[in-house]
């Protein structure tokens, strides 16, 4: 049993934690475009570059769409690639996200979650990353700067794993996490470097009849990104799905290895369970809101209420089995959601959680609380109100309307 590595505490906000982690991971190319609230990431990295603290080609592309294209191309050439974006920038990259996952490029990207226009809003919510849940990217949502730091480092190992080979999005709430200073435990440079190692490549069959490492290499020419007609396309998409399923195993493996080294874990890497073992009422949520929920859970527990929290850390691949197991005893669950699917009778997370619970024998009553859009704060008393609602539902065994709003002026 290895002992936990000695770590230094630094005062970092979420963005700085991202930049530091990327710096330590021996990234080869960063191609990015600034957008609030991710700007500190790209600026910090630029500072490292300017001071010769990293051996990285830093490309300031003229838009996010080009940033992702350049990242993909650099990755295809064999480089370890990192970038960051948010909101409109992520939306602008939309097309390229699918191309990147389709090309199986292990790009790691930090997303400082921010609301989508219109109206223009620079503050935190999950609508940007939620809109990309179908893009074939692994998505991890972090609660605080510490977790962000840990997750970015793990992301490279997950993305580059030979059974995965998918790009990874590490999400941190805009301003709440990205700009809030925290005590963050930082691993030594060489420890991180050893942990991430150098990039390994799967092998592919090329038109020369050779089976060679998957990258653009004049010694072993190959064609990447061809046109696949209807008689071929479908199989590649199934491959991506398989990679996602493999990720459900790889993510906990990498997480465990990291936990041994750092002394920190977040559940098993997929979900974080807080006072959930015997909970009757539970909130399910992503990101920093969980932090506030935890304080409310503590208060309620002290009052004898069997309240619990399930924080979904890995949202893609969706850990359905683990979620079902975690909510085993729960009678009423509220999915707190920081994004909307207009006209969709609730948000994406609500749909997927309910979907996972549908096949179970004893389904909890599940409701959706849309909150925090455009960076609106959700306070402990509002969360307490949710738990009150859940208790009412649990006792009355009735749900009047499954989709509600918290903090909205109605």
């Amino acid at each position, binding site marked *: 049993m290895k002992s936990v590595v000695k770590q230094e505490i630094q005062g970092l906000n979420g963005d700085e934690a991202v930049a530091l982690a990327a710096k330590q991971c021996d990234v080869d190319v960063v191609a990015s475009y600034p957008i609030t609230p991710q700007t500190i990431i790209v600026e910090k990295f630029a500072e490292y570059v300017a001071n010769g603290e990293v051996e990285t080609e830093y490309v300031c592309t003229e838009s996010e769409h080009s940033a992702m294209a350049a990242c993909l191309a650099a990755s295809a050439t064999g480089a370890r690639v990192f970038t960051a974006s948010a909101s409109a920038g992520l939306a602008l990259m939309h097309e390229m996200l699918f191309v990147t996952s389709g090309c199986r490029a292990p790009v790691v990207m930090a997303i400082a979650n921010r609301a989508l226009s219109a109206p223009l809003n620079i503050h935190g919510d999950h609508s940007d990353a939620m809109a990309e849940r179908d893009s074939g990217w692994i998505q991890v949502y972090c609660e605080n700067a510490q977790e962000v730091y840990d997750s970015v480092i793990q992301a490279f190992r997950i993305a580059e794993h030979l059974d995965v080979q998918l790009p990874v999005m590490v999400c941190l709430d805009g301003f709440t996490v990205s700009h809030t200073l925290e005590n963050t435990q930082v691993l030594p440079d060489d420890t991180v470097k050893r942990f991430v190692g150098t990039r390994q490549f799967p092998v592919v*069959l*090329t*038109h*020369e009849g050779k089976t060679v490492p998957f990258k653009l290499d004049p010694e072993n020419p*190959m064609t*990447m990104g061809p046109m696949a007609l209807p008689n071929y396309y479908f*199989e590649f998409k199934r491959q991506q799905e398989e990679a996602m399923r493999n990720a459900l195993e790889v993510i906990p493996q990498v997480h465990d290895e990291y936990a041994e080294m750092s002394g920190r874990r977040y559940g098993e890497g997929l979900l974080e369970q807080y006072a959930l073992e015997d909970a009757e009422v539970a909130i399910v949520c992503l990101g920093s809101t969980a932090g506030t929920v935890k304080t409310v859970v503590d208060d309620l527990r002290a009052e004898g209420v069997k309240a619990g929290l399930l924080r979904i850390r890995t949202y893609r691949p969706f850990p359905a089995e683990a979620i079902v197991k975690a909510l085993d005893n729960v009678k009423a669950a509220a999915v707190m959601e920081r994004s909307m699917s207009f006209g969709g009778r609730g948000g994406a997370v609500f749909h997927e959680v309910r979907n996972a619970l549908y096949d179970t024998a004893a389904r909890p009553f599940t409701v959706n609380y849309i909150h925090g859009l455009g960076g609106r704060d959700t306070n402990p008393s509002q969360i307490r109100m949710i738990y009150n609602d859940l208790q009412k539902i649990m006792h009355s065994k009735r749900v009047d309307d499954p989709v509600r709003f918290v903090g909205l002026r109605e």
Partner: protein
Amino acid sequence: MTTKEKSWKEASPAGVCWKSSATYLTGDWKTFRPERDVTKCTKCLICTIFCPDGAIHWKVEKDDIEFDMSFCKGCGICANECPTKAIVMKM
């Protein structure tokens, strides 16, 4: 298609092409085919330069050009550009 196509488990990921187009014979596209009068041909090699399909080869060992009918699409550029009008397009 007589060959069995690869299943998703067998296919190389990310759609890397595994056959050279040199095995995809486009010669049956043509309606007209070039015919060369060797007495007029000066081996200037202009036809080998202009052919969009690279279907005319300069054979060093033969010290002559050779038309590759398995790729020639019969566009007629070679005939049109030949400085001595040594090439004629025939049905």
